[in-house]
């Protein structure tokens, strides 16, 4: 059976437990499920953040995530993958992104989830704008995110 893949980009919040259940229910070959949830933080680089607005490139964002999920499926023995990325305005504590990976064993699930998050950070066409006390500003890309994504090339 081909591993089921769910990719969604949406304004609405998501339910972590429901997504984990949807991907693992009734599939007794799954022994390990790893979830990563990214949350909007109230401070960044020492400055208070009132809100984030997330913009994306419709069409390419889904396609780019799909390409990376396919890479993960080719690389690790995964049973299922779900990626959900929210867009729009979010406030501190709000969920931004969810990656769920399932496998028979934990190593594959952990590695694939971390790989997908590293690639999402560096390559998926999303942009964050912060509302701060000193005005509003686009978040700068971090070099360490490029480095985190690049380490998967070497292995």
């Amino acid at each position, binding site marked *: 059976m081909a591993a089921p893949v769910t990719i969604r980009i949406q304004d609405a919040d998501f339910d972590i437990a429901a997504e984990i259940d949807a991907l693992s229910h009734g599939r007794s070959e799954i022994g390990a499920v790893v979830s990563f949830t990214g949350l909007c933080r109230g401070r960044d680089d020492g400055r208070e953040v009132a809100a984030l607005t997330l913009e994306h490139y419709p069409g390419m964002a889904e396609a780019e995530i799909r390409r990376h999920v396919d890479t993960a499926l080719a690389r690790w023995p995964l049973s299922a993958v779900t990626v959900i990325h929210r867009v729009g305005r979010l406030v501190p504590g709000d969920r931004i992104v969810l990656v769920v990976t399932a496998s028979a064993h934990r190593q594959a699930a952990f590695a694939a989830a971390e790989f997908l998050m590293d690639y999402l*950070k560096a390559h998926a066409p999303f942009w964050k704008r912060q509302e701060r006390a000193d005005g509003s500003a*686009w978040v700068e890309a971090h070099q360490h995110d490029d480095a985190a994504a690049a380490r998967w090339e070497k292995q």
Partner: protein
Amino acid sequence: MRVKYFAWVRERIGKDEDDFEPPAEVRTVGELIGWLAQRDDNYAAAFERPQVIRAAIDQCHVQADAPIAGAREVALFPPMTGG
């Protein structure tokens, strides 16, 4: 050819896309960026640091030396900050 802009590139230009037929000597993404930067002050501001601009052709990431011949959609944007 449709050219799409995102994040602060979009904001500085003041719109989210254009339809262009660039002259024949504009062959690569990098040359397209240079050509756009000369249109007016808004485009100049958007592309004042061409080395930080990222690009996609038909929704796949490309480098500045990628040829634009045959592209239906070119997108120009800052480094991504998703996840």
